[in-house]
């Protein structure tokens, strides 16, 4: 099933011509309208550089998350402020997030891509989608929401958590598709079983769209088994609209990336040079349709590889492999992007704590932050310690949007490794 068969099965040649034309338009636009790009390109002697082939994009410098944070709040805007209608933000390491703006056309286009993805997996207007991702500044929930509405199905904006209510909604409204993180999916299956219900028989589910954090083939199978449904892998990032940048088709062998909307490159994360076809590297994306805030050669920090062969589904937009990791130290917990530096900043600002800390990720998707008491901060009172523990947890939650368990440890008791301290221990089995 195709949402837009012509585009999705467009010939390679026509696709490349389309990409080239859109790339030229985009570059001309940013050099004119975005001072950041104007200066950056001028620095590289590129203001008048003509793009004649798609490979010419390599002459242009990369855009990074740091650039976006520095440009905060609206230094990357190409449209006038009056014409942007939506703002989304994504975590940053230094206290300022990355701001991404959308025009009406951008919103519609991101919904359009989602509609392609949903249709590609066999979703139709007769389905009922329960959106169990976090609404708010994140793109995860809203973008899927608009796309599902575009397809014409009933959308339940449940958000995450409150499993009791989720179950009730699923039963009462006969939900057929869920959009959810891998850890919550596993947790929820368990929750249902503990209630004496059979997730395979007692629900109407037939599909799950799972993304927001990397997970293994093994985990996919576990979720499919638990619910008796088909699980489709979903890839996206806030800087590129959100979910729907790439999605699995019925063959579930790689995710089709919409090449008419994004020009993709895979580069060596250290040298920035393109890697051989099929080899893993860092995914770099250039927006081809974005109006409010186009991005040129944006470094996603995600590691993947292109699958050059044609997919049996007939779509000519190439597939990427499931994401295997990051080139930076960003963590994803319960679908939320978190930088260890954010945690460090919060902890260093609490005078009762020592300098050493550890972040432990375990179980399905649990985070434990181990902190050390300061020599002077122990006054023998249990209540003070309990208050401190709660204070630290709350401060962290306010910064990273996920509430960790906080463990207090005596001063100097946490292990310190030589050189760069190993702060993060990830023992999750997703």
């Amino acid at each position, binding site marked *: 099933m195709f949402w837009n068969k012509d585009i999705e099965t467009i010939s390679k040649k026509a696709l490349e011509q389309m990409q080239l034309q859109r790339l030229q338009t985009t570059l001309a636009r940013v050099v004119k309208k975005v001072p950041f790009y104007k200066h950056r390109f001028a620095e590289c002697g590129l203001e008048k550089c003509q793009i004649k082939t798609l490979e010419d994009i390599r002459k242009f410098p990369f855009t990074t998350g740091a650039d976006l944070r520095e440009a905060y709040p609206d230094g990357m805007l190409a449209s006038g402020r009056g014409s942007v209608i939506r703002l989304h933000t994504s975590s940053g390491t230094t206290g300022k997030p990355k701001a991404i703006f959308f025009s009406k056309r951008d919103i519609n286009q991101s919904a359009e891509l989602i509609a392609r993805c949903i249709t590609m997996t066999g979703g139709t207007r007769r389905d009922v989608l329960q959106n169990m991702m976090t609404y708010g500044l994140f793109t995860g929930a809203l973008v899927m929401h608009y796309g599902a509405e575009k397809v014409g199905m009933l959308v339940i904006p449940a958000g995450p958590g409150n499993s009791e209510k989720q179950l009730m909604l699923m039963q009462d409204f006969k939900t057929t598709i869920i959009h959810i993180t891998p850890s919550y999916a596993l947790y929820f299956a368990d929750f249902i079983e503990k209630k004496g219900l059979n997730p395979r028989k007692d629900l109407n589910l037939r599909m799950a769209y799972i993304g927001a954090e990397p997970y293994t083939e093994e985990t996919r199978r576990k979720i499919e088994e638990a619910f008796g449904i088909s699980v489709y892998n979903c890839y996206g990032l806030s800087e590129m609209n959100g979910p729907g940048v790439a999605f699995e088709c019925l063959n579930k062998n790689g995710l089709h990336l919409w090449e008419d909307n994004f020009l993709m490159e895979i580069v060596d994360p250290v040298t920035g040079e393109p890697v051989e076809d099929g080899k893993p590297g860092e995914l770099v994306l250039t927006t081809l349709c974005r109006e409010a805030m186009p991005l040129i050669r944006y470094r996603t920090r995600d590691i993947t590889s292109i699958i050059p062969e044609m997919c049996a589904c007939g779509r000519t937009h190439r597939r990427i492999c499931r994401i295997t990791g990051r080139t930076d130290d960003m963590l994803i917990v319960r679908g939320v992007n978190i930088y260890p530096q954010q945690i460090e900043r919060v902890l260093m600002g609490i005078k009762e704590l020592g300098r050493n800390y550890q972040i432990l990720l375990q179980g399905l998707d649990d985070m434990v932050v181990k902190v050390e008491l300061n020599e002077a901060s*122990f006054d*023998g009172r*249990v209540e003070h310690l309990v208050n401190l523990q709660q204070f630290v947890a709350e401060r962290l939650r306010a910064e990273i949007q996920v509430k960790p368990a906080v463990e*207090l*440890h*005596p001063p100097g008791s946490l292990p310190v490794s030589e050189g760069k301290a190993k702060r993060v221990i990830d023992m999750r089995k997703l």
Partner: protein
Amino acid sequence: MYMKNVKIVAVFAENKLGQMARITGVLADAGVNVRWVTIATTESFGVIKFLVDKSEIAYHKLKEQGFAVSLLDVLAIEVSDRPGGLYRVATVFYENNINVENSSGFVLEPGKRAVLLIEVKDIETAKEVLLRQKLKLLSEDDLLNV
């Protein structure tokens, strides 16, 4: 008359197996004698409070071994070991608006004397009140050399 306050040694202990053994081991090695002990716990950690015969030594030895330790000033009130002994003290506190934060008691001489250890916010004010009310306060020497 200057009285040396009774000190309680409070130690932070993670909820890990063997913590109590480690801590009491340090005290034993240092020749410190424990007169009274209590543990307050939460799910993840505990605070162990000791009344010892050599509080300064205990404090420094534990600190050396990497424990988070604190010395707390407490009031030690001598109470007669008969019905009504505790009631009398409680009434004094109530009538004088002294808020007791923590309290513990044990017998010194059965049938004769017991002691009540009390933690209050403002120890000096409480001391004055108690002395005015003719309650018997014990100093560190009184209590430990009994």
